[in-house]
């Protein structure tokens, strides 16, 4: 009987000991959980700021990338238009070079434009600068000088310069003292009217 009671007492004690340990473990677990929760709550302010800042940065990044692309796209289209226009101008210059080789018609063109240029410069002693090929053409300078004289009322002489210029066609007319000068080479004419031509070509090409 006493052994049975003794056994029961020990069994109860073991059970109570287990309960004490179990309770301590649960308490420890609870303390850890609460501590973690407290840390997370304390960190939440900092994390909210981090996330908010990341969202703002993301928006800025997006806007910046798209804005850069938008500019890139606009430039791409502008560059393409410029490239096409330049291609046309280059082809036009080649066409003018062909025209410059069509002797009779071109000679008439030169005469007409030399007179016009001479009138613009106001006559006087004038010098014509041509490329090597054109300097061999028969331009009848006296007749051209007379035509300028008639228009300007100023005594005019015309001579071909010994210096050849590099051009596909056209000429440069300058006064003998070099103070007045008119570039009427095909390249010069294209350069002078480039801006106006670009606008007009864009209108025709891309309408």
């Amino acid at each position: 009987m006493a052994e049975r009671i003794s056994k029961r007492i020990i069994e109860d004690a073991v059970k109570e000991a287990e309960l004490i340990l179990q309770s301590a473990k649960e308490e420890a677990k609870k303390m850890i959980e609460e501590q973690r929760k407290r840390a997370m709550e304390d960190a939440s302010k900092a994390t909210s700021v981090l996330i908010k800042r990341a969202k703002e940065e993301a928006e800025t990044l997006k806007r910046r990338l798209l804005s850069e692309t938008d500019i890139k796209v606009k430039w791409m289209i502008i560059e393409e238009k410029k490239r096409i226009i330049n291609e046309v101008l280059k082809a036009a210059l080649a066409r003018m070079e062909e025209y410059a080789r069509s002797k009779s018609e071109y000679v008439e063109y030169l005469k007409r434009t030399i007179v016009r240029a001479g009138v613009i410069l106001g006559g006087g002693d004038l010098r014509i600068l041509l490329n090597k090929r054109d300097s061999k053409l028969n331009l009848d300078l006296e007749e051209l000088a007379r035509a300028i004289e008639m228009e300007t009322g100023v005594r005019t002489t015309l001579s071909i310069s010994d210096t050849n210029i590099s051009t596909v066609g056209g000429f440069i007319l300058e006064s003998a003292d070099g103070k007045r000068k008119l570039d009427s080479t095909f390249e010069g004419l294209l350069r002078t009217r480039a801006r106006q031509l670009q606008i007009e070509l864009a209108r025709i090409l891309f309408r």
Partner: protein
Amino acid sequence: MSSVETKKAVLTEQWKMIVGEDIFNALEIIRDAENRAEKIIEKARREAEKILENTRGRLPEIYQESYRNSIMEAERKAREILEKAKTEAEKEAELLMNRAKSICEDLRNKAEKRKEETIAYVVKTILEI
């Protein structure tokens, strides 16, 4: 033998005579069990206290670790947000670039059709012929 021990021995003998030896022995066994039970519970209490003490000691470290983990997690999320935004923007940018390429292609096609007309226009304008 001290006087206390002598007195205890005398009382025990008297008690044994009153209750009889069997009951006395049985009570002794129970008392012994009670003592052992008390020791078991005491040991459990000490262990429980140790567990709680250890846990309390670890709390600052747990706090720091949890705080750090929260920040690291937020940083990861922030990186994800930025990465996602970048990917979306790049995708959109690619679409814009493709659209631009298509516009350029259209421009080339249009220009090709009007090239001759335009060249003639330039020659006519420059040479005035």
